[in-house]
């Protein structure tokens, strides 16, 4: 009974609303659309279980670029937990800190995340995972060169933002902050719904090297290609960030 998303109705038109909450940044809706769970923020589509491939690709793109044997990972944006799950699947990952702005998103993830949420909970008990409510920027600010991988899976990427406050994460300052929070040889990875040449240039100006990876999610029978921007910090002790 799903309606076609190509209609002129908003993103809420197609599915059963499971919960509607007033979040920190406006209205949050959890809904079920066929086999998929979706989170809508302020009427804009935020994340769906249909985005599993690209959320996992965020980690899959960054981890092989980092050579260290024991990795400390920071993920901005828990969403539905795929990037976290992908990080936990990597044996080299020592510890993952996930910062999520919306308490309801964390609650939904724990309630509906199934085996993923179970694996994360086991990681929490073992001290390998910490999920904290707050602004990922705070984790970046307070940790100079403390992470091997920083993954930003916040909002809808660099240029299509649901939350205004997220803009500065993708600003030149934000990019520098990500680089500064990396250990030598570390990687900062940014989920992006598209290729943005201007963003790419700004990354290249701050990082020593930028590598792109793509991932495809199939949503409502249609393939969407996303871009993972991986910014690499050189192994030298220099700091131009």
């Amino acid at each position: 009974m799903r309606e076609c998303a190509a209609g002129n109705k908003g993103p809420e038109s197609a599915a059963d609303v499971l919960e509607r909450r007033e979040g920190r940044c406006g209205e949050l809706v959890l809904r079920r659309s066929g086999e998929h769970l979706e989170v809508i923020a302020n009427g804009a589509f935020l994340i769906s279980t249909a985005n599993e491939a690209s959320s996992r690709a965020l980690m899959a793109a960054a981890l092989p670029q980092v050579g260290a044997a024991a990795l400390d990972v920071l993920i901005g944006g828990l969403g539905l937990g795929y990037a976290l799950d992908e990080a936990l699947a990597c044996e080299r990952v020592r510890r993952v800190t996930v910062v999520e702005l919306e308490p309801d998103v964390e609650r939904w993830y724990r309630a509906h995340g199934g085996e993923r949420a179970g694996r994360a909970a086991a990681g929490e008990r073992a001290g390998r995972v910490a999920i904290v409510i707050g602004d990922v920027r705070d984790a970046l600010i307070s940790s100079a060169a403390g992470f091997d991988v920083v993954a930003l899976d916040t909002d809808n990427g660099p240029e299509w933002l649901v939350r205004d406050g997220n803009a500065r994460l993708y600003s030149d300052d934000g990019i520098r902050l990500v680089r500064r929070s990396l250990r030598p040889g570390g990687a900062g990875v940014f989920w992006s719904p598209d290729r943005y040449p201007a963003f790419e240039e700004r990354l290249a100006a701050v990082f020593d090297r930028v590598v792109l990876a793509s991932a495809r999610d199939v949503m409502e029978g249609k393939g969407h290609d996303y871009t993972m921007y991986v910014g690499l910090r050189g192994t030298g002790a220099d700091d131009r960030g």
Partner: protein
Amino acid sequence: MADRTEFGLFPLATVLVPGEVLPLHIFEERYKRLFADLVDGGEFGLIFVEEEGLREIGCSARLAEVVEHLEGGRLNVLVRGVRRFRLLEVREPDDLEADYVSGVAEYVDDDEPEAAPELAVRALEAFRAILALMGVEAPWEPEGAEGEGPLSYRMVAAVDFGAPFKQQLLETLGESRRLELLLTVMATIMPRLELRAKRQEAIRGNGKGY
């Protein structure tokens, strides 16, 4: 081998932490002399003094700026906290009026300088909530003091949690432990600040509903 030094001591009923900038008014002869000796960039030791006397742990400082030269050689200055030290020995001068007390000290660095990131995020969240309840409207951005010491010290430099607590933080050698102490203190004062904010709201609302 401990990193030892000897410097002039400045006992004060205030606690300074590394990275913090503190204004001082200098009017006693012995401290005029101390600051004359500091113009070339040396350090002195600022140490918390209570009724029981000097504490063992203090913070070394440098003269950051002479803000004002006043008559009679008095000074208004800004000093900046540099590094934690443990006082090993106090050396009194012959003339206590004219000259300052020196101390032999060893520097004591953190055994755990980086905090668990989730603690930093939680502490910043709580700290901003406290600032909001205190009526501070400007957003607090710790990166203004980027690289100038741990987050916990930047917080206690920005908000007065009382000198004894600040001294406790100065004496705590790990950033995670300091943030945990701060989280505990903030959780304790939060309900009081919330109550106060509600009362003020009620007063503004002409007492209605309260």
